[in-house]
């Protein structure tokens, strides 16, 4: 295996993908969802909380709980079969890349794309919230400096933890893109399985995280909870980290053995 080829492949694919319709559609979807949250916040502030913080975290909650997992599954489910349908995988595997290099490259590519999508969503939500509610609302007033220093590391941690479940979903999506040569087929199966995945242990455990706080308590009230050190992040690492990673690894192994056996024609 040549790691430098995997890196070259990822860099090339990133350059190619960030201007693709699929990636731009994902960004547009994130932007639209944020705008819907702004609208909701404006017409029903009593439900969401009414502050700039509440908007940012409600919107991010929706992204993390629904949009990111959904998009990660859909995008990864067409990652290999789309290129294969154009014969590009046949060209790549003809003396340029090993199948496992290709698989790992696609895997890493989608993770990098999701980091980019996540950062875009985070920055966009903060900027949008700042513009509409004023930046002090989301930088100074909502949470006291002291509380923020206690709260922020946990917030960052709980924002990162969903990544493990998303990795499991990416694994599953890539497996679909290997199993189904037809793009429509793999997307349909992904949508279907997305609806069923809640019943499989480990896939959606991150739902009990960060966003819950934003939804259950307006942030100004949350301050009191933080100041009184009443807020507890009950992170079950077995369920949140280990089980999704085991799922991701097992599914990756199936993808690996499947792609090794596949023939790529033009």
């Amino acid at each position, binding site marked *: 295996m040549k790691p430098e080829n995997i890196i*070259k492949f990822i860099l090339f694919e990133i350059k190619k993908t960030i201007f693709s319709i699929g990636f731009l559609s994902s960004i547009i979807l994130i932007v639209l969802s944020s705008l819907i949250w702004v609208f909701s916040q404006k017409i029903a502030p009593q439900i969401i909380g009414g502050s700039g913080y509440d908007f940012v975290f409600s919107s991010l909650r929706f992204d993390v709980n629904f949009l990111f997992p959904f998009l990660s599954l859909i995008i990864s489910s067409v990652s290999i079969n789309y290129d294969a349908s154009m014969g*590009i995988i046949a*060209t790549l595997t003809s003396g340029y890349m090993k199948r496992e290099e290709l698989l790992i490259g696609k895997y890493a590519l989608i993770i990098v794309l999701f980091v980019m999508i996540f950062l875009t969503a985070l920055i966009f939500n903060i900027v949008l919230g700042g513009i509409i509610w004023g930046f002090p609302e989301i930088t100074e007033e909502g949470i006291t400096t002291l509380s923020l220093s206690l709260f922020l590391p946990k917030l960052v941690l709980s924002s990162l933890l969903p990544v493990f479940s998303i990795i499991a979903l990416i694994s599953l999506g890539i497996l679909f893109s290997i199993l189904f040569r037809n793009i429509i087929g793999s997307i349909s199966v992904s949508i279907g399985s997305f609806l069923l995945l809640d019943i499989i242990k480990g896939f959606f455990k991150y739902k009990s995280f960060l966003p819950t706080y934003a939804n259950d308590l307006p942030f100004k009230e949350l301050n009191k909870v933080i100041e009184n050190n009443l807020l507890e992040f009950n992170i079950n690492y077995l369920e949140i980290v280990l089980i999704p990673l085991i799922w991701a690894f097992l599914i990756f192994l199936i993808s690996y053995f499947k792609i090794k056996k596949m023939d790529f024609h033009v």
Partner: protein
Amino acid sequence: MLKTVAIKKKYGNFLVFEDISFEVNKGEIVALIGRNGAGKSTLLGIIAGSINKTYGHVLIEGRDTAKNFDLIRSNVGIQLEKSAFYPHLSIRNNLNFFSNLKNFSNKGLNDILEKFAIHEINKKFSDLSQGMKKRMAIASALIGDPAILLFDEPTVNLDPEGIFIFYDIIKELKSKRKAIIISSHLLTDISNIADRIIFIDRGKIIIDLPKYRVIIPKYVVIRSNYMKESYELLKNKYSDNCVLLQINEIKMDYKNINMEELNKLLVSHDLPPKELFIENTTLKDIFDETRKYH
């Protein structure tokens, strides 16, 4: 340089071919001939690594490629039958990427583009003509200066200029002692440049012989403005069964003919031929011949 040993390929219960064993030496050009669907592209795909074999070995310099993909990466260049590159990227960006994967220099790539007269390097792959796509695919096979080159139906869709360039490059590659396999379903297509011919039919190699033993002159063909008179003259001069009058030509058994004498004979009777040429064995002849024994 390249050796295949007892290669077998099956799709489910369908046997594409079996027991495919041959060798290609440095500086040798092998024509891989067979009908459409004979498995030529599959065989080249197996050598290049994009298709798995059911059984057998591909050896490069005596080492099994199944155990070492780098042998393929550093030694094999392939032009696939249908050109497949990133459609929304330019020729330059596509080939840069593939060059990069083989650590091939920019200068080397520019030389290849120059050789193939590919000038519109900033044009998107999807906007290229079929001929230019084929040129690009052939050019991509040379990336990394591989010792083994595989060309799958290289002249299909190629414009006349492209065909000339291709044959020139093949000659140059031969002089650099590259091992070359060219697959085609047309014998005439590559008979001029190949050293050896391998025929695949019904899942087996039925011929693996030097070209001179496969492509042999079969008929002398005469096209003339005086068909009837020429035919009468030749029928009288030669035995009846070696002269065949067809719609717009006369065909004579090559074995009995001296071309120079024949031409003189026709000219001396004021029946100068418009065209006088030798027709070689065709793929069909060879298939018909081999079918008698298989």
